[in-house]
């Protein structure tokens, strides 16, 4: 694939890639960050994203897939617009992480790695997210919400629902 003519990258993502590779002693060091940034923009690592990253870095698609499959934040299928990640590791578990996870399951009607029918939310039980002293904690995409209680779940979801509908009406 020719990266210039067949790009799935936006101009911004393309510029970010060019700035990034220029910094490193070795071009390949941009691989992991670029996969994550591309996923942020496109939603997941589609075949086209993998092909484009491979061609831009100058390695094979197989090599890209091999690396991408190692990292738990990288995904090969779309997630919801807002990916709810609930930590249930020890510090969160001790303070009710599983109750939070159950509440999200109930509210969203989906389980671990599920996506809601409208595509707005997905749900994941995740390992430690580094908010142990403020447990239980979750991340919605990259936003942290800490010191949670099951009764706060609904309002968190509502705030993202209104974000989603605001974006629809703006579009």
């Amino acid at each position, binding site marked *: 694939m020719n990266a210039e003519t067949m790009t799935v990258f936006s101009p911004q993502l393309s510029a970010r890639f060019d700035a990034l590779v220029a910094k490193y002693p070795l071009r390949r060091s941009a691989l992991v960050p670029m996969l994550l940034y591309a996923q942020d923009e496109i939603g997941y690592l589609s075949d086209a994203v993998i092909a484009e990253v491979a061609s831009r870095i100058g390695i094979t698609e197989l090599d890209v897939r091999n690396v991408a499959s190692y990292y738990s934040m990288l995904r090969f299928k779309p997630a919801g617009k807002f990916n709810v990640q609930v930590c249930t590791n*020890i510090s969160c578990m001790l303070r009710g992480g599983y109750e939070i996870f159950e509440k999200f399951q109930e509210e969203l009607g989906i389980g671990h790695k599920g996506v809601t029918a409208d595509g707005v939310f997905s749900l994941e039980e995740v390992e430690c997210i580094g908010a142990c002293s403020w447990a239980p904690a979750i991340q919605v995409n990259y936003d942290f919400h*800490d010191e949670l209680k099951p009764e706060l779940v609904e309002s968190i979801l509502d705030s993202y629902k209104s974000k989603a509908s605001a974006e629809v009406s703006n579009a």
Partner: protein
Amino acid sequence: MPRLVSHPDEVKIVSKRFGMGAAQIDRYVELGGYASTRKCIEQGSEWIINEMKASNLRGRGGAGFPTGLKWSFVPKQSEKPKYVLVNGDESEPGTCKDHLIFLHDPHAIIEGTIIAGLAIGAKMGFIYLRGEYRYLLEIMEKAVADAYAKGFLGKNIFGSEHEFQIITQTGAGAYEVGEESALMESVEGKRGVPRIKPPFPAVVGLYGGPTVINNAETIATVPHVIEMGAAAFAATGSERNGGTRLFGISGHVERPGVYELPMGYSLRKIIYEVAGGIWKGRTLKAVVPGGSSTPCLLPDEIDIGMDFDQVGKAGSMMGSAGVVVIDDQTCMVEFAMRTISFYQHESCGWCIPCREGTDWLKKSLTRFHAGFGTAKDIDNIKYIAENMMGRTFCPLGDAAAMPTLGFVKKFRKEFEDHLDGKPCAFAKHVEVELV
């Protein structure tokens, strides 16, 4: 936004600028920032390394290796470029201290990285943050850009003949990458599997060049050591353990939070005074002293000072100083199961004892907790864990085996109470995947 806490017993060195707006470069300079770097440019490499050695600063990632000694291992002459690599992959369950440093004091990380570079003769440093810390990466990126704009980074830092470049790097979700050789693999754009040692990174590291790899808290401590002087820093801590640590206290306490306390501070006081004691008027069952990979301590084992040597003598490790407190209403089999299922998830699969061992431990503990265990399983769990120890490239295998051995040894009775088809009285969250 993570809540900041404080306690009168705290000695604020690393956290002294938390909550003071020091992420803004002008504010940081106003608070005395970058003076340590200027001083190090004047004094030079040998002086810096001697100061670090005299300070008794030891690695805050968990291993507790003396920082000055680590820096001194880097060869003076090298054909390949040398590098500084800051480990902000912070993924050990129970640990969230670096989170606050990146949030409140990113310039301390930059300063520490430059000083490490001056000490070993490197011109480039990498600051690696776990992928989940995106908002912190953005804070760090802005701080780096501001430092370039002021001439604190670049070709001639602070108008000197020294060059120093910093690259911020994101991970994408991997505990294993917190291991130093796996971290280098990740920076090089590969799967984060560990390298065999020797050669050690100080000789053959990133891109094959000599590399110093330090935890983010260690690096953030460096400018403070320079500022207060090695002797004063060493005097703050206990014997052979200089300074303070950011203790991340979590679990069943009244006031969880990140507190900065001198090395050697009493574990009992951490639980009962600093963190306000066990919540809901309950009693202490066990405490994990230094992140989930460290063996738990029982209530009669907490009269120790929290430093690398004393916790080691008590049969555990200070690790990342993530203190996880467990109350008497907790099932230790479930706790063991949740701990091991993390390591099973995070094992990179490179070394067979770890890949297979974590998987079998998870399966055994899950079945056990569901009430299908047999007496033989208890010894089997012990057998598997013992056979993982020391048989892998990196310490992840040990990190899974050590706490498991601790749980089985210290809570054998509780394991036995699960026998005869009796699932645990506290059981709430058992996913039974019988094999």
